[in-house]
């Protein structure tokens, strides 16, 4: 485990490498999940929307994991990190690997993730690490759209028909357990925050709660205290869902090493 003194944003910095994996894996795994909707969404416009969000997230993942590979200094690039790592080595939060469920469940997950990601990336755009600041400023413009779009769906479904409302409530009921992890601060987050590379995640919680309250009021949905949290994604302790997701995502490059278009 690294200490704060080693996280100065220089190459071969294990804390920065791990932190970039967390960011990149969040985007990558959610992108893969969203891609499962391609051709199956309730409407063609929604199909395009989800695919576009997935594409933006793949773009973020590519930039973040390429950078992670450079920081690690062992010759791995974004593709290598995405396709040739096992589940235990992934550092994404548990939220993004949760199954799509129905459209309500997918929108609940998207809303929670994008709302948090928007707050985080606003801070990252001011990072002392210029490379990360550039990536974040670029990605933030896309994330703003994802957050607004998913909030609109939460309101539309929550304040919709009895069935859409029930599905939205059920969707959030699945996801609440994984919200606390988004704001968890361990020794890596603390070291990164101390170096001014990223805001400490727990500092984003108040703004997130305010946003949640605003959206739920507009959606006429009830907000209850969160159930007990499930943690572990940042240490590689994942749900069984991630293994199945990776099997689909990694099959081709592993079965046919070096394959290109």
């Amino acid at each position, binding site marked *: 485990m690294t200490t704060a003194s080693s996280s100065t944003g220089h190459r071969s910095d294990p804390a920065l490498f791990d932190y970039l994996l967390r960011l990149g894996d969040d985007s990558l795994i959610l992108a893969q999940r969203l891609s499962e909707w391609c051709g199956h969404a309730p409407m063609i*416009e*929604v199909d*395009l*929307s989800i*695919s*576009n*969000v997935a*594409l*933006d*997230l*793949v*773009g*973020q993942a*590519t*930039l973040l994991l390429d950078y992670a590979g450079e920081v690690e200094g062992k010759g791995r690039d974004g593709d290598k990190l995405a396709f040739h790592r096992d589940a235990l080595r992934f550092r994404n939060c548990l939220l993004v690997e949760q199954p799509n469920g129905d459209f309500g469940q997918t929108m609940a997950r998207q809303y929670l993730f994008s709302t948090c990601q928007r707050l985080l990336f606003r801070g990252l755009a001011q990072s002392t690490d*210029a490379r990360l*600041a*550039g*990536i974040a*400023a*670029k*990605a933030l*413009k*896309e994330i703003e*759209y994802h957050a*607004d*779009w998913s909030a*609109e769906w939460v309101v539309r479904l929550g304040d919709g028909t009895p069935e859409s409302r029930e599905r939205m409530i059920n969707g959030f009921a699945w996801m609440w357990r994984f919200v606390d992890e988004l704001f968890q601060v361990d020794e890596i987050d603390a070291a990164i925050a101390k170096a001014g590379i990223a805001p400490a995640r727990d500092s984003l919680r108040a703004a997130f709660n305010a946003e949640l309250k605003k959206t739920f009021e507009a959606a006429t949905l009830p907000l209850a205290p969160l159930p007990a949290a499930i943690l572990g994604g940042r240490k590689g302790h994942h749900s069984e869902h991630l293994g199945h997701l990776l099997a689909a995502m990694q099959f081709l490059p592993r079965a046919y090493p070096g394959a290109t278009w």
Partner: protein
Amino acid sequence: MSSPLGTGWRDRIMHVLANVPDPEVPAVSIVDLGIVRDVRENPPAVIITPTYTGCPATDVIKGSIRQALDLADFRDVGVETTLTPPWTTDWISDTGREKLRAYGIAPPPHSSTLRAKQLPACPRCGSTNTQEISRFGSTPCKALWRCLSCAEPFDHFKCH
């Protein structure tokens, strides 16, 4: 001071780039869209910036620039990508905006007017009696709208 690239190299390279179309919206060039950020002399390189992080057109654009530079005998001029500052639709030239409109795509508003919530004008009939169908369209940079006057759907280049 002479350059190894020859006299007037910058104008000549810009002329080459002005004829490289965007692969998704071939009516406009990459210069019109503001994707070309700089032409550097030493080491010689064209600096471009992606519109969206995951836009698959970025690789195609790089390939098209490479091909166009090679054909114009600028084989030693590289193609580099930068993220900073991030691309904005404010960099789309006035010519580019007019070309987009003529092509059937409502051009983006300038970010300075974004908060005014002005609706895009229908690129066909010019009416501003328009409505958003979907925030995401056929490419990352576009949203899907419809005109309530002439009833035609149209693409709107999103303010970004």
